[in-house]
């Protein structure tokens, strides 16, 4: 790090942890929303099967995407000092 750099590695790390957390906040929000839609359709007795079918598709997709990103972010950070020969 040079003298002029104001952003310390700690700030970068904080931002990175925040971004992973935000990804999971998004996933949890989507799941919460979908669960809300399921309960609403149940309450109204309105196309429950279709609602369930669509929900089953959406939720794992978001979890998978967030999982991939977390895997990449954590994996890259963990292996950043690893020597090529020992990898």
């Amino acid at each position: 790090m040079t003298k002029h750099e104001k952003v310390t590695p700690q700030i970068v790390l904080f931002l990175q942890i925040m971004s992973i957390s935000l990804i999971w906040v998004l996933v949890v929000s989507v799941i919460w929303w979908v669960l809300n839609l399921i309960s609403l359709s149940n309450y109204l007795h309105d196309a429950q099967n279709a609602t369930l079918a669509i929900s089953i598709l959406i939720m794992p997709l978001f979890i998978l995407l967030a999982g991939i990103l977390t895997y990449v972010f954590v994996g890259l950070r963990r292996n950043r000092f690893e020597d090529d020969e020992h990898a």
Partner: protein
Amino acid sequence: MDDLRHDPDYTLFRPILEKDRRFLWMVSVLVGLIGWSIYMYMRQWKYGLSVTGLNNNVTWGFYIINFVFFIGVSHAGTLISAILRLSQAEWRRPITRMAEVITAIVLMIGGIHPIIDLGRPDRLMNVFYYGRLQSPLLWDVTAITTYFTASTVYLYVPMIPDIALLRDRTTKFRWLYKFLSWGYRGTERQKHILERAMSILMVLVIPVAVSVHTVISYIFSMTLQSGWHSTIFGPYFVTGAIYSGTATLLVVMIAFRKMYHLENYLKEIHFRYMSILLLVFSLLWTYFTFSEFLTGVYGNEPMEMMVIRFKLTGAYAPYFWSMVTLNFLIPLIVLTNKKLKTIKGILITSIGVIIGMWLERLIIIVPSLTNTRLPLVVQTYIPSLTEWSLFIGGISIFCLMFLIFSKVFPLISIWEIKDGRAEGLEEAKGRLESYLPDQTLAEGRVQ
């Protein structure tokens, strides 16, 4: 920084490192246009949809046309990029990044349009509180959100090695590159992690992309409206989407090739291959259009015929035949003729296809609404200045975001180019050898 000037791929770093007056000039024009469209939208917010050309019959106009059009264009990216990566087409290397950026930006713009179309945007949150998943409109919300998330991830993950390169070799935006590169140093483990993630993403993104435009077609085909209630609308929309996306990608490639002097990277062969793709989709689109109209005409259902006549010989005939000319005749003439299939010819054809595909969305949406099953007077739809302004605003946002992206990240994947030079040649040779029959076995049989 100095050693960067000796890098064989310095051209790719140049837009980020060097100041460009043209960039500032273009940004100011685009910001002006966006400012104007924001003002027009504020006016619409205040006075409601009465400032648009929408009426009792035509409740979906420019905004929904643009929504379908922009989401369609987004298929350029991820789908083309994923298919080229999956099929290990070596010529993909300088193209994929641009395609992926188009997707992410255009999806954002397209996604905003249904909100612009709302007379009461303050009620938007009701979709989240009281949404009902039996409605194709809500399928759209979920499909577009999923596709946007997937395509942004798909743009970002393959960009990490390039961001790390910028972090190590430039002084601009270092904090941003440090944050976004996640400590990437190109170790074998890190490469393996990225490759694994990319392999999953490129497979995942294809069905997501296809589902998005299929779901958009359902908004229309799930209704009993004449001209919309069709079983082929799903594949028809997907084909049209990839078609308009390919054309947009070609226009962007040609424009930035000229602007940033990328002639050494985006060679004629890339345009030739892409134009073959464009021609294939032109023919596919024509086939679907023909099937759609033939079944309608043959069925001779009175209401269906009213809409078809309105398109073929009525008020929308000039748009319909312009669409046929731009989407079928011109591509067929230019792209099958060696003399005409130059970069200039491809550019003109691609611009024509973009206009033609926009007209296609217009022709699908408006005539079915003007000729309703209800005993209403046929009302024509004339878009207002507000709608035109917001349309131009949408295009300006696209241009601005693309320009800004090109000033922060490389438009061509540098690591993929370097990787292609270092390993791609050997890999391609090995692959070719694996396709061909084993020579020793063949010789043995002869003996």
